[in-house]
């Protein structure tokens, strides 16, 4: 078989696994009620070092009848491309992972039905599994009819004239935009890639044909700023273009200007917190985890501060409290997210935080690990900064800037002076949804938790 002879170039260096052996496993055992045999086609491990594979091409289309030993799909591993064959006879009912997409080893990439009757069921299952957005509006009339997934060059065979450029069609397919509904703004009324991107709600990419890289901060959309005014040139200056991360930060910062924000500061005594920190430090708890936990607990009581204003017309109350914490990187800034910070205990939270920071340094954060935050924490206290104010990241309601905890002379009600450790926190919030009193109340709750930190360890 072709796949095996092809492997000759790599087999010498890595122990090589016969792909078919890993291809299929029966689902029927796990679902005893379902009599039909629908089998998942798994992403095989093509080499010992392979963790994920890219689907190069599906040799078979949905609805094709497969017989044992036939190549079904071509998979690209870290080393080579391989034909992967089926171990069972059946019908390729559904393709879960499309050509060009990547799936981890062991993930279902397609479904194999034993009989035609089971195709519909398999497809329903596939639809449930599919991580992608819901399928395009056009529903297939008869689910039994095998649908050849031909790489149709013609986007829409509407009788009316529709002209769309090749890249526009490609983008439309990628973003599941119905191109026939678009009005072209290009020359001669043709649909351009920009039209499709607009319809898909994507910020148009820079003019060069570079594939847009994942933005490290929230990928919200807005048109990029118009080119800046020209500044006088200073001889000898060096121009270093932004990295992807820096470009994303820049984009987000410009975007943040569209949000009306205000700031409220609050002094908080930290002696109790410092004492607690000393106690739990040995158990791996970090100050970041303590502050995140405190903020999360306060947010539970003040859901409006954990909310988002998405459209300027409504509150979006988030069901979970996800604390994003800003981390400085060599070439920028990233905000790993402690998800459900209110629910996890301090120790788990600290452990999670350690993992996230390591991943961030290795640039291995998954998108949901840096863009799912509902509230951001930024701490510059370790640099001795006593107060600062933060810019609200688009898509969130509030951000807290934490200054250094310093011994401060404090006068109490009776007029006695004492020296207490005190830090200044300053919260920036979106005034469309969070008002001054809301923020003040939240800060009061937060201060209470920090000054009586025993609840943090519970």
């Amino acid at each position, binding site marked *: 078989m*072709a796949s095996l*002879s*092809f492997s*000759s*170039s*790599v087999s010498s*260096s890595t122990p090589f696994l016969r792909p078919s052996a890993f291809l299929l496993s029966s689902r029927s055992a796990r679902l005893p009620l379902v009599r039909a045999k629908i089998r998942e086609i798994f992403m095989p491990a093509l080499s010992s070092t392979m963790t994920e594979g890219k689907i*190069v*091409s599906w040799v078979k289309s949905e609805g094709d009848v497969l017989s044992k030993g036939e190549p079904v799909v071509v998979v690209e591993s*870290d*080393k*080579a*491309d391989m034909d992967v064959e089926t171990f069972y006879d059946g019908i390729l009912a559904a393709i879960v992972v499309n050509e*060009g997409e990547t799936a981890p080893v062991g993930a279902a990439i397609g479904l194999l039905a034993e009989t035609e009757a089971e195709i519909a069921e398999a497809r329903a299952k596939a639809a449930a599994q599919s991580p992608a957005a819901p399928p395009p509006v056009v529903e297939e009339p008869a689910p039994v009819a095998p649908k050849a997934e031909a790489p149709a*060059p*013609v986007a829409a065979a509407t009788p009316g004239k529709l*002209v769309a*450029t*090749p*890249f526009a*069609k*490609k983008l439309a397919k990628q973003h599941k935009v119905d191109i026939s509904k678009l009005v072209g703004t*290009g*020359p*001669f009324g*043709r649909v351009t*890639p920009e039209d499709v991107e607009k319809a898909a709600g994507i910020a148009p990419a*820079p*003019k*060069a*044909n*570079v*594939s847009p*890289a994942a933005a490290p901060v929230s990928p919200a959309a807005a048109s990029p700023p118009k080119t800046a005014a020209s500044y006088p040139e200073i001889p000898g200056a060096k*121009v*270093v*273009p932004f*990295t*992807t991360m820096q470009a994303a930060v820049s984009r987000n910062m410009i975007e943040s200007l569209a949000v009306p924000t205000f700031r409220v500061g609050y002094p908080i005594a930290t002696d109790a917190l410092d004492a607690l920190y000393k106690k739990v430090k040995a158990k791996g708890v970090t100050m970041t985890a303590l502050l995140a936990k405190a903020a999360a607990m306060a947010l539970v009581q003040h859901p409006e501060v954990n909310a988002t204003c998405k459209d300027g017309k409504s509150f979006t109350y988030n069901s979970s409290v996800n604390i994003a914490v800003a981390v400085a990187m060599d070439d920028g800034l990233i905000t790993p997210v402690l998800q459900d910070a209110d629910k996890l205990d301090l120790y788990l939270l600290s452990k999670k935080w350690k993992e996230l920071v390591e991943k961030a340094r290795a640039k291995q954060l998954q998108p949901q690990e840096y863009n799912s935050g509902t509230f951001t924490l930024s701490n510059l206290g370790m640099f001795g900064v006593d107060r600062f104010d933060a810019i609200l990241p688009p898509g969130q309601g509030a951000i807290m800037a934490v200054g250094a905890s310093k011994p401060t002379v404090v006068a109490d009600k009776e007029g006695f002076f004492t020296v207490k450790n005190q830090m200044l926190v300053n919260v920036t919030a979106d005034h469309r949804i969070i008002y001054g009193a809301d923020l003040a109340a939240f800060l009061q709750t937060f201060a209470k938790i920090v000054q009586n930190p025993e609840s943090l360890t519970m």
Partner: protein
Amino acid sequence: MHSAISLSLSSPSPIARSSAVNDTCPSPPRSLRFCGLRREAFGAGASSAATSLRLTSSDSRSQHSNLNGVFAALKGSSSGFDYDLVIIGAGVGGHGAALHAVEKGLKTAIIEGDVVGGTCVNRGCVPSKALLAVSGRMRELQNEQHMKSFGLQVAAAGYDRQKVADHANNLASKIRGNLTNSMKALGVDILTGFGTILGPQKLKFGKGDSGDKIITAKDIIVATGSVPLVPKGIEVDGKTVITSDHALKLEFVPQWIAIVGSGYIGLEFSDVYTALGSEVTFVEALDQIMPGFDPEIGKLAQRVLVNPRKIDSYTGVFASKITPAKDGKPVQIELIDAKTKEPKETLEVDAALIATGRAPFTKGLGLENINVQTQRGFVPVDERMRVIDANGKFVPHLYCIGDANGKMMLAHAASAQGISVVEQVTGNAHVLNHLSIPAACFTHPEISMVGLTEPQAREKAEKEGFEVSIVKTSFKANTKALAENEGEGMAKLIYRPDNGEILGVHIFGLHAADLIHEASNAIAMGTLIQDIKFAVHAHPTLSEVLDELFKSAKVKLTAPKTVAQAVPV
């Protein structure tokens, strides 16, 4: 298969050529019937022959320049004709033939009605390589991911269209100059005008008026080449509907260009245009784009060169009518089904490039004077390039090489055919093995091939009753390719497991066009896999892709090896 684009040309110079004198020095190769020097021919004496070769080459060079002097002085032909050899057409084929003829001591003239260099140098492979060099860099600079993987930061890359066009034009002039000088320096007479055959061994040249001169030649080679083929119904205005001739001048970069034909020319231009920011639509009459490539290579090429780029395609359709942009309307392309001829769609694009192939250029050649009828425009020839007349007889002393005979429309094939003809007219029976001629497509990455494709090999195997085996290697396993972050690619070897004969090699990947020659030389020399696998390759180089390919081939050696013995041929 078109000469225009697919070839590169080693810049010819007298020095480079004279080293080829080696061919003629030792006697064994001279007696061979095929251009490939069979391994047995050298036999046990190979090593001693090699040393003597080096000695004789310097001798023959000095002897050679003496000869030139003699000819220059005599200005006459030893055969009683004005010239020993007259070549009509100074393209790459004619040039190759002329240089070899001088080397063999023939008094040679070359007739050119246009500019020296022909299609390849002026309107084909040479300027297109200049554009592709630009597009390759552009592509690399625009690929942010690729640059970042090296740790490089590049601001948005841009280009100046006129300067890109100038680069292509300057390269063509430079190569044209090299070609002209190399012939002048060797004493080849360059005659300006159109050549017309008047009868056997007799021709005239000039502007076609009374000023024409009549000359005689012992042998005549027709090397008039080809022009872009423009199918019926297509109106070429040179601005919005263009052929490769116009496209190479790069007078404008359209936002959206349709390329009619997805062979070598179309594919290379799609590489250029998409790198410069255009979107491309292929119109292909066959059922799949990139016909003519080994199917597996074609599939991979489509995955890398077409799918991720701003390209779409219409297959199984003819462009029945193409109207240039005018009166505020875009270019209109009417498509009809290739089989049923039913009208399908009308495309509206900014420009259309006609890359449907090339038509032989034989007009005004005077073929009627010697009773030769062209077949679909091509001059009929046998395997030794001898021209066949309407009665099936050879026209004495008349040969046709290159695109005009249509055997293999590649510049280097024309040159090889020309050299083969010169060998014949100087008394050495010689047949060129066309299966050893490599071809290349200079996309990014490149595609190259020699010999048979897998379906062709299987068909041949079926007929002749032998087994075919295939092995493949990936660029992903090559150190040098990985260092360049260019792991995308494969090499494929089609061979006979019973005797180790190489039937075909196909490469898709970084520098594939330069890598193919190890395989094409092996085919030409008749080198077998079991022998070439012992050849050593520098590490780490891309050549190890082929090394690995040969090493992974499994040859079942049943018959005793007959390598060590010299076999007289």
